[in-house]
């Protein structure tokens, strides 16, 4: 019985792995684009999950980090002519620094009060992008050149797909590393009890800053990939709706888990595609599906997978 279970699990992993690795070879452009979006939002979900799922700090402003990543990458590519191997990490580093500053309100505020402060962060970033026209092009938006490295230009959907896949694999591996070691545990302790964390030698302020920075880093890298994928960005898209979408992803997928982050992104991007065929009411069905998932799976999709696995 246990053997059969192990085989089934392995078969599922191998199958999913094969599909993911070979997708551009047998899928048409649109599904490959959709899968690329899953990867990008998966990175955002990992980043936001560090902040909210692990460290327990809510953010309603993560579209701000996503925008910072997208615009920094776009401008470094367009105006400085940097290859993507530099523009993406630099966007990540910049967002890490911004994250450290954005963490400051969290040293004083909690829960709903922090939610409003982070909401403000998102609004400020969006307004800055609108107003700073000489740099960002303002409301007219910004066209983004294809990512390049020397003579290599990633011009097709397939190229972008593999770049995103590589970053997602690297990002997931790094996230699992940190979740399992000192900082991952310290963030969880800060979430569980700041008082107890302090009495265990953990600087609450330090780990809040780390959580915001790390979260900003992942989200900005995702934003950078996004600008390369869509090749045109506009401040309008980085709005509160996007921030709430990010938050929904990690709750649906499973708070405080890395695989759950990815599952949340899969659900959030793929479910509306599946419901697209339903005449007149895809939005309605998708909205209801959120309610159903939360009611039936309080620990999110990953918690549900775990429960099925134990029961099988």
């Amino acid at each position, binding site marked *: 019985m246990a053997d059969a279970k192990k085989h089934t699990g392995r078969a599922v992993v191998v199958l999913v792995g094969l599909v993911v690795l070979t997708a551009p070879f047998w899928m048409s452009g649109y599904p490959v684009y959709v899968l690329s979006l899953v990867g990008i939002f998966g990175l955002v979900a990992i980043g936001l999950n560090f902040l909210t799922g692990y460290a327990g700090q809510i953010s309603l402003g993560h579209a701000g980090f996503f925008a910072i990543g997208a615009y920094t990458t776009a401008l470094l590519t367009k105006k400085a002519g940097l290859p993507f191997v530099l523009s993406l990490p630099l966007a990540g580093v910049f967002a890490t620094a911004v994250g450290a500053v954005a963490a400051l309100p969290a040293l004083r505020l909690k829960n709903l009060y922090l939610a409003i402060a982070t909401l403000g962060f998102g609004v400020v970033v969006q307004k800055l992008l609108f107003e700073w026209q000489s740099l960002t092009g303002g409301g007219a938006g910004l066209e983004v050149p294809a990512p390049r490295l020397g003579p290599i230009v990633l011009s097709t959907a397939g190229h972008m797909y593999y770049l995103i896949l590589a970053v997602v694999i690297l990002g997931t591996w790094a996230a699992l590393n*940190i979740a399992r070691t000192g900082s991952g545990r310290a963030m*969880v302790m800060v979430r569980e*009890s700041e008082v*107890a*964390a302090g*009495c*265990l*030698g953990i600087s609450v302020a330090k780990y809040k800053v780390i959580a915001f920075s790390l979260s900003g880093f992942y989200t900005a890298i995702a934003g950078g990939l996004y600008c390369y994928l869509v090749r045109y960005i506009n401040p309008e898209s980085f709005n509160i709706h996007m921030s709430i979408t990010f938050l929904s992803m990690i709750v649906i997928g499973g708070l405080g888990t890395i695989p759950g982050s990815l599952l949340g992104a899969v659900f959030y991007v793929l479910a509306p595609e599946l419901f697209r065929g339903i005449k007149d009411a895809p939005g309605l069905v998708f909205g209801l599906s959120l309610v159903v998932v939360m009611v039936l799976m309080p620990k999110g999709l990953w918690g549900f997978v775990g429960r099925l696995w134990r029961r099988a």
Partner: protein
Amino acid sequence: MPCLEIRGLTVDFGGIHALKEVSLSARTGQIVGLIGPNGAGKSTLLNCISGLTRPTEGEGRLDGTDLFSLSPHAISRLGVGRVFQHPEIMADMTVMDNLLIARNRFLKYGVLAELLGLPQVRRQEAESRFAAEQVLMRIGLPDIGGIHAGSLPYGHRKLLEVGRSLLLGATVLLLDEPVAGLNEHEIDRMATLLAELRTGGGLAVILVEHNMGLVSRLCDEVVVLDIGKVIARGTPTEVLNDPAVLLAYLGEG
């Protein structure tokens, strides 16, 4: 030479004296009981030592280092362990993770090294795990490192908190009612552990407790607080027969 020394500690909460000129000291190898009726200020005193409450006046030193100017994490990093009245554990993480959390002060790697899973991180993790296994044996709960802390019975959670302080490398242990809510068997287990820790050396313990049996059995010295003031101190026998103490506990008549 006293390890922990508190002198003239006064805490005002909006004009009310929670503590008034309280002095207390604990040497390594000593268990000092801190008793008194509810509201006497026992937890406030522990909170001052932990850095959670800022004293209005007074001096607190650990081996000469001024405690009252430090933040909670800086104080715990000096080796002050705290066991809370209600166990503060990470319920959806393993017992092992709940122990390893106390190793934070010893970590010598940064976030970047963690992300990249560098060898030094893995080496330190392995060392910490080994230390945690030793602690699990010491608190009498070997082989439970892999289970979820949330599934532990209450008594085991309390033992786990003591173990966590040991892994912190505590030289001072502040225990806030460690046996409240435990059954006879669990109380006996906790008492045995605390007695062993005293003989093991290296630890000064402040024990806040209502269970007088445990206080008499373990404490070298007992300090009695009532409405923020020390009303008696001495050996358990002296203190528990002191008329002023009986009056504070039982009321007049």
